[in-house]
């Protein structure tokens, strides 16, 4: 109520341009150049919100991001932004804002009743109460009363950007910079980037300096990386860039920190109309607003007199000036939702009431050096008065300007003595921490700065302690009889100013590009055949459907067709790693459990990789293409990891004369599987000899296909007669088109991952990661017999000699057959013993259209010796009976695969 717009003045406002806005449902107008806070002040609106705990009326107290009371909810076309300091919002036409944490309005708030319960809500009250009957009983109410603004309810209509910069010198100017001092620290202004606070007006005049407008430095991280956030478009225009994150690397960082003035501590010092001298000066000079008509100015004598003179010259009456450095102090303000008088004590001990409608205060100055502290900088504190001076910086960081604070003003003895009374003297406005709270915390032993902070929440508001840390430390020092130097917080955690998640994360994509989809080279071909794509590390057909078939029905049809005629499967994502060189075989003997050096040219062998802990890491076939040339296949989607792994061993452990290269995306690979696979390939007019005995199972041949270099391997993951045809990735579409034209009339059916899963489980082929876990060792899946005779050491071998590897109750791969053939045992189900304890688990389980029953692979304790035993399967409370069997349920004689 007290503030008003002066008839003239205000350096930033344009009185010819009126802007309309809405606050708490009422319409107002302000001028271009106003902040929301100044526009409200000009309209006589002084109660802007309610405090966190007691819901006391609060108004603007500070400027910019130091503001701790005047937080608003900004409404923008359905998108709502919480807790924005009204002092940081530049007014625009049509702005809509609401106060936070008050209902129904800041002038009348139902939770203000908390003020009556204030004696009950002292520091740490949560910890001592609300235990009977239970915390749950109270928590809902407490949560609803806490919090400040509301979350948005829809996705952000604006965007966020990022920019990298590398400069020789970065200047972060939050205070005026002396040109001569600056020049002493730089070679020239050519390669200087400056982030200049809007309040520092005279900097722009400096020639030759590149400045970033509306940009705040928020963090100084490892190796001098500075994060700064630029406000690009603050108005709610859909699709515009709202904020931009700047990542700035500089050889030298110059910080010119602002000095932040601090509140005075006295009873009811939180009343609207009581504000910092810096805020009052900003109102007056920048926005042409007087804080009141009868103003008390309190603080160091020189500053108070100077500002009092300025107020008088602007036409405002100064009710009193209080020189806190002359033994004068404020004791208590009175007024309901504003101020009408204040009690002042004089050095002689006399106290008197002074009528006023506003109090302007300055209780000491402290440098805002968050970035400096984030870089590991230290500051020294004057042991006498607690004022701060930044001292040693890292090599990279230099402080410019005035970094010497001024002492905190003393707190009246009366306030410290009477603090237990109901009248509240606030140390932290937003979190409602009072002198009495600090006293109580100290009395209970919470007397280190960290304990005090955590017990009372002092300094944990959105102003991050800018207005409370200094007074809190001073009162703690007095109450706990500790040296002041030990009571000030010494760390500053990023960000220096609360910063949006989206801006800080702007370098990383969200949405579709958060993990770019990997498309197979013949992606379009499959989509035309009706492929339904899914994400398996690559976008792959889970199944093909044309007439609204379900995924289940399609997979059943495809799996049947492969066994009856033939199927076409795109295996291009299959991991492919080439190993070349004179020592390739010896090197691979170290990588695999099995021996690869004895593999004959043109032959293929199954290989198992372990980690050093002896657990199965990956599997796949290995082909020997030449004397010194191997091709390793590994699990799709695992190729990058396996490649990095193999190459790490090459570089760091076994530096043999070999090259390792990941060629996964160089080749497209198509599988043709089924009884008619050879007929189909023969009809394709290849220059390969496909005759059964000359090209047996587990062999590989090179030649050409459709005029392209091609490779065919006779390998199978379905248990059928099967060929894998590989062509260079650039030829993928042509080759597949050619294949399809020939094969389709012969009855080939494309099949997806789901059908492949059915086929391989029928056949008892495991899938590493689905059927194995970190416990699984080679012997558990049937590969225990060979390696003990192998001469070479291999990754994980030593771990297979440890005691747990010899245990009789190791979990081993088995098949399960449910009593009821219609049952498909659940993947993720457990096998349980008579006591209901888990003795195994199901990794893969499908309905087999070829066997007309469920087929299941499981890991079961001592499973290899339990074939034929009956077991119970458990999942989500249900139980099934099943019989243990060997893993292979289909063609255990391998007749088809060798056909």
């Amino acid at each position: 109520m007290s503030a008003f717009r002066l008839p003239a003045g205000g350096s930033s406002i344009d009185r010819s341009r009126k802007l309309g806005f809405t606050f708490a449902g009422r319409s107002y107008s302000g001028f271009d150049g106003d902040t929301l806070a100044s526009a409200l002040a000009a309209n006589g609106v002084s109660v802007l919100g309610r405090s966190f705990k007691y819901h006391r009326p609060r108004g603007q107290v500070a400027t910019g991001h130091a503001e701790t009371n005047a937080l608003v909810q900004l409404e923008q076309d359905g998108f709502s932004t919480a807790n924005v300091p009204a002092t940081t919002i530049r007014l625009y036409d049509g702005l809509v804002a609401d106060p936070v944490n008050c209902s129904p309005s800041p002038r009348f708030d139902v939770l203000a009743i908390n003020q009556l319960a204030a004696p009950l809500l002292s520091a740490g009250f949560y910890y001592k109460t609300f235990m009977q009957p239970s915390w749950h009983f109270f928590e809902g109410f407490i949560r609803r009363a806490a919090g400040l603004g509301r979350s948005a309810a829809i996705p952000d209509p604006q965007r966020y950007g990022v920019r990298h910069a590398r400069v020789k010198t970065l200047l972060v100017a939050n205070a005026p910079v002396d040109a001569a001092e600056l020049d002493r620290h730089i070679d020239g202004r050519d390669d200087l980037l400056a982030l200049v606070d809007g309040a520092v007006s005279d900097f722009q005049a400096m020639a030759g300096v590149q400045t970033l407008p509306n940009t705040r430095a928020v963090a100084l991280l490892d190796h001098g990386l500075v994060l700064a956030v630029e406000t690009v478009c603050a108005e709610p225009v859909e699709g515009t860039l709202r904020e931009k994150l700047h990542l700035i690397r500089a050889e030298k960082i110059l910080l010119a920190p602002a000095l932040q003035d601090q509140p005075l501590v006295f009873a009811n010092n939180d009343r609207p109309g009581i504000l910092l001298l810096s805020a009052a000066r900003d109102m007056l000079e920048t926005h042409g607003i007087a804080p009141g008509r009868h103003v008390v100015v309190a603080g160091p004598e020189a500053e108070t007199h100077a500002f009092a003179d300025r107020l008088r010259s602007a036409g405002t009456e100064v009710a009193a000036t209080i020189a806190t450095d002359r033994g004068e102090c404020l004791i208590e303000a009175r007024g309901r939702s504003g101020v009408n008088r204040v009690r002042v004590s004089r050095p002689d001990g006399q106290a008197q009431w002074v009528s006023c409608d506003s109090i302007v205060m300055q209780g000491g100055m402290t440098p805002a050096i968050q970035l400096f502290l984030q870089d590991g900088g230290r500051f020294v504190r004057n042991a006498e008065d607690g004022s701060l001076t930044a001292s040693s910086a890292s090599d990279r960081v230099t402080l410019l300007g005035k970094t010497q604070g001024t002492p905190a003003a003393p707190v009246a003895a009366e306030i410290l003595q009477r603090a237990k009374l109901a009248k509240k003297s606030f140390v932290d406005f937003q979190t409602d921490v009072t002198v009495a709270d600090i006293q109580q915390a100290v009395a209970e032993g919470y007397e280190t700065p960290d304990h005090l902070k955590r017990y009372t929440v002092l300094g944990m508001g959105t102003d991050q302690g800018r207005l409370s840390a200094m007074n809190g430390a001073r009162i703690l020092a007095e109450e706990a009889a500790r040296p002041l130097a030990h009571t000030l917080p010494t760390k500053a955690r990023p960000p220096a100013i609360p910063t949006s998640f989206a801006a800080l994360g702007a370098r990383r994509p969200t949405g579709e590009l958060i993990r770019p989809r990997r498309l197979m080279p013949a992606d379009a071909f499959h989509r035309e055949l009706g492929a339904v794509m899914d994400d398996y590390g690559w976008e792959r057909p889970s199944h093909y459907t044309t007439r609204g078939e379900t995924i289940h029905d399609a997979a059943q049809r495809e799996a049947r067709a492969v066994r009856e005629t033939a199927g076409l499967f795109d295996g291009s994502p299959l991991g492919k790693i080439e190993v070349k060189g004179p020592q390739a075989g010896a090197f691979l003997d170290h990588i695999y459990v099995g021996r690869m050096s004895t593999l004959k040219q043109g032959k293929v062998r199954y290989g198992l990789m372990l980690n050093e802990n002896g657990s199965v890491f990956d599997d796949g076939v290995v082909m020997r293409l030449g004397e010194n040339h191997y091709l390793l296949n590994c699990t799709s989607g695992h190729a990058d990891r396996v490649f990095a792994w193999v190459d790490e061993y090459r570089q760091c452990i076994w530096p043999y004369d070999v090259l390792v290269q990941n060629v996964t995306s160089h080749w497209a690979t198509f599988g043709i599987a089924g009884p008619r696979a050879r007929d189909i390939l023969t009809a394709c007019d290849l220059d390969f000899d496909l005759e059964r005995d000359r090209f047996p199972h587990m062999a590989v041949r090179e030649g050409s296909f459709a005029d392209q270099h091609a490779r065919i391997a006779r390998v199978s993951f379905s248990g059928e007669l099967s060929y894998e045809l590989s062509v260079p990735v650039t030829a993928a579409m042509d080759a597949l088109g050619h294949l399809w034209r020939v094969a389709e009339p012969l009855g080939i059916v494309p099949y997806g991952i789901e059908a492949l899963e059915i086929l391989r489980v029928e056949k008892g082929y495991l899938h590493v990661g689905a059927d194995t876990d970190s416990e699984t060792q080679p012997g558990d899946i049937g590969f225990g017999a060979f390696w003990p005779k192998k001469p070479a050491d291999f990754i994980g071998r030593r771990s297979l000699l440890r005691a747990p590897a010899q245990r009789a109750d190791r979990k081993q791969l088995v098949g399960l057959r449910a009593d009821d053939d219609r049952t498909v045992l659940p993947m993720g189900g457990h096998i349980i013993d008579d006591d209901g304890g888990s003795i195994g688990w199901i990794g893969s389980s499908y309905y087999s259209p070829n066997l007309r029953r469920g087929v299941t692979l499981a890991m079961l304790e001592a499973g290899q010796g339990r074939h034929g035993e009956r077991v119970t399967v458990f999942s989500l409370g249900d139980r099934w009976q099943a019989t243990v069997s060997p893993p292979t349920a289909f063609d255990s004689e391998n007749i088809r695969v060798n056909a």
Partner: protein
Amino acid sequence: MFGTPWGRAWRKAEPKSHYDVVIIGGGGHGLATAFHLARDHGVRNIAVIEKGWLGGGNTGRNTTVVRSDYYYTTSSRFFDRSVKLYETLSKTLNFNIMFSQRGILNVFHHRDDRAGWLRLVNAMQLNGVNAELLDREQTLAYCPILNADPNARFPIQGAFLQEEGGTVRHDAVAWGYARAADAMGVDIIEECEVRAISRSANGNISGLTTTRGDISTGKVAVMAASGSDRLCEMAGFRLPVSHLTLQAFVSEPLKPVLDCVVASSGTGVYLSQSDKGGIVAGGSTDVFTSFARRGNFGTMESVLSGIVDFIPQFSRLKLLRQWSGTVDYTYDSSPIMGLSPVPGLYLNCCWGGGGFKAIPAGGETMAATIANDAPHSLIEAFSIDRFRTGALVDEAAAAGIEH
């Protein structure tokens, strides 16, 4: 009475020349162990010594989540005991630790991930711990603010839910145990750093040299998180551990909007809302050894952008503070508890990012271990010997994360 000031929560004790048991580390585990030693085993001449300030390590730096969603029976029994003790801890200590059992929802994004989560849910059910698997609709009903776009890069396909899980006011756990232990005569000595650990001729622990004087004792318990390896080195052996930075993030306070702890397996982030209204979030650890307690930007940006992807309406939510702790991880991500190679030296460390939830059971079992000089049955599997024998308790792998 409500507002009446209590006395000091714990005395400012001066170190005595001898204690029956000295616990190194004034965090949750150390204080809980002292409490149980005094209450359950009648040991009263105990000191808890702390290098810095009480509760200032990972007890006061974690994201306050308490859960018992463990796979192996060994882990399950231990962690579920911990949740049960947490449920009554406020009354046990007469100090409100604000256990808010609002449920923990682990969201998955591919239908093939369901089997892995079902395997865990079934293991928990068989171990007598409540757990459920939710489908997409149930998941979105449980936590309506998640990105519900069915065509999202990481679409919501379902979730694993532990309803008994939730959050606890972390500082209160340290303070509550400290207050209760102090009341039974335990000396809590802050700003006291161990400089040396001495052993007698027979190899047994005989005492400590600290910055506040020498202390003779026959039993020393190392519960100092990332300081533990250095302490063990003083006693003559090393811990098989890696030290990494784990970051946490808290936003400005909001009115209630998130009513459970929710995690995404796609983006790797997890978050909850505190009683004060801040959104508390975390992700994976930083990827290199550090004792700097400052997080790296790569992890920070992936957590924050991951949250925006998972819950798009949080894009403008403002980060208020990021902070870090040094976490001590073993190869299998399970703790090291019990006896050590040195007689009279007991271990309770290497909790990685997961020690907070284990505090009550850690205290109870370690107190018994120290009193009886034999490992409590619930912690036998967590012995340091497992790294020599290879009998690991690999929870991360069983949960399908790594193999």
